[in-house]
């Protein structure tokens, strides 16, 4: 590209490179061009390497999961089923209950902590301690959260107890730091001018937060909460430890083992009956349902961000 051609628009770095090449009237040597080509090829290969497993997993879940994706899957539990038939209704109900309870614990607590960090904490010692605690909690492996919930409930109720509520407590330990971080990030995007305008009009701080900060940040906060739910809804290990598994329906979070979708998938594989094909089919059907739920949650969270972007531009 000639200099005259670039005059009309803002020259880019690539234009500058072109100009340099034109000026010196020589292209980079063959060895350098080959290296450049190899690097570009490697980058394309890397993208393929990342995309291929995703495509293969989705393909496997679709083709193998579709075999048992019938109405009976959603209307039956596994109670009394040893071969063909049966369904995952009990696991679906369990996942809804446990995830709902987790969200009820983690979202209010995480949001309140994030409000403290952005609106009240400042440089105070407690804010520093809380941030440090959140940093450490992020690195808790999920199975360790399960063990901690098990230890808590066995201290309270005696050893060996398993319940949906214990599962929710374990998942909350994983979700709280996620909610705190995403909420804090969004709350920081709310322009300081808005807060100052409210305070200058004589509103007390809590009123500024309730009437100005939270409504402005609401889309971002919702997106963060939905992504938090998407993050924990596929968690298996902690639920395997503390919620256990069962073939029967259980609507009571506080008592008894409760099946969940991820644990259903695991146990369909781990404790098979004689008719192994039926168990494999149910496992894949469960995987397909779980992935569909996660994708829907991700898309829902993605539908919100324009509002955050607007906030970003205002800053």
């Amino acid at each position, binding site marked *: 590209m000639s200099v005259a051609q670039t005059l009309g628009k803002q020259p880019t770095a690539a234009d500058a490179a072109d100009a340099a090449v034109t000026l010196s009237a020589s292209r980079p040597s063959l060895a350098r061009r080959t290296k450049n080509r190899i690097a570009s090829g490697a980058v394309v290969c890397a*993208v393929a390497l990342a995309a291929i497993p995703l495509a293969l997993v989705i393909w496997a879940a679709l083709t193998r999961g579709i075999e048992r994706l019938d109405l009976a899957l959603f209307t039956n539990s596994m109670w009394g089923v040893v071969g063909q038939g049966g369904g995952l209704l009990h696991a679906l109900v369990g996942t809804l209950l446990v995830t709902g309870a987790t969200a009820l614990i983690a979202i209010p*607590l995480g949001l309140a902590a994030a409000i403290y960090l952005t609106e009240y904490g400042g440089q105070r010692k407690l804010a520093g301690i*809380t941030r440090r605690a959140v940093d450490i909690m992020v690195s808790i*492996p999920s199975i360790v959260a399960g*063990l901690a919930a098990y230890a808590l409930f066995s201290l309270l109720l005696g050893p060996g107890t398993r319940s949906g509520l214990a599962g929710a407590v374990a998942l909350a330990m994983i979700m709280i730091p996620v909610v705190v971080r995403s909420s804090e990030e969004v709350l920081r995007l709310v322009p300081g001018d808005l807060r100052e305008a409210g305070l200058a009009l004589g509103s007390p701080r809590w009123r500024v937060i309730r009437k100005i900060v939270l409504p402005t940040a609401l889309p971002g906060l919702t997106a963060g909460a939905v992504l938090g739910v998407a993050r924990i809804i596929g968690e*298996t*290990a902690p639920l395997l430890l503390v919620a256990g598994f069962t073939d029967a329906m259980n609507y009571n979070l506080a008592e008894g083992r409760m099946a969940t979708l991820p644990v259903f998938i695991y146990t369909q594989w781990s404790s098979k009956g004689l008719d192994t094909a039926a168990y494999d089919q149910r496992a894949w059907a469960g995987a397909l349902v779980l992935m569909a739920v996660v*994708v829907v949650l991700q898309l829902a969270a993605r539908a919100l961000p324009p509002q955050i972007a607007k906030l970003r531009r205002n800053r």
Partner: protein
Amino acid sequence: MRAAAVAVSLVLVGVLVFLAVKGSPAFTAGAGELPAHAANFWALAGPLAFGSLWVAVIALVFAALPAIGVALAATIYAPSPRFGRFLGAVLDLLAAVPSVVFGLWGLMVLAPAMVPIYEWLHRYLGWLPFFSGQPSVTGRTVLTAGMVVAVMILPIMAAICRESFALTPPALIEAAYALGATRWEMVRTAVLPVARSGIVAGGMLGLGRALGETMAVAMVLSAIPDLISVNLISSQNPSTIAQFIASTFPESTGSQVSALIALGLVLFAISLAVSVVGRRVAQQGVSR
């Protein structure tokens, strides 16, 4: 609000206290009280900690270069910002696939597909300790497990790398081009040196994730708890802490449970150490 901040900190304290209270008997427990017929706690924890690190390092080796490549594709090499965003969405989706689904896939699709490759590796590279001995006929080896975990940690590593590549000062990029650098020379001399701490931090974060990964390893790996081996393709593989806890816990009682809880503490300590190192490196990069 203050109460919530205190509560969040107390949750962490609670986790440590509950684990310590229920796990502490295991540290002094003798033979017969521990799972897997271990003589004492450290004889149990040692090989498992080796297995956790071994699988995590294999995963890191597989995931590191693709993660950097994907991050470059999403920033420097992206033909348009839209392509970068699309790639980001694909990575988010990959990160959101539940580990139990990866486990199922690794076990039923990837493992059988790897068997001929393992036989080939054994035939031509069998003189290396990694590929000696009879290769597994099921494909459920430590190498397969490491590959599955690699797929799972790739998105998080790519995300961190992408962030640090995007922070390269445009002046550096343009200066490199102005000196006649090709795109690769620009990346090598301007982007990668600036982003080095970000790349290391992403790697440490991925390593931490890999250490704690439970279900995929529990389903894919056919393991022996007290084995230390660097063989990648054998049917006899070391186990990992997380896998051992998940597979043993449902049938354990009493002192065995406290041993598993103590193992959880050890795993927590290891992954905390990794993440602290990662954060140090990242902060060094920021302050520089």
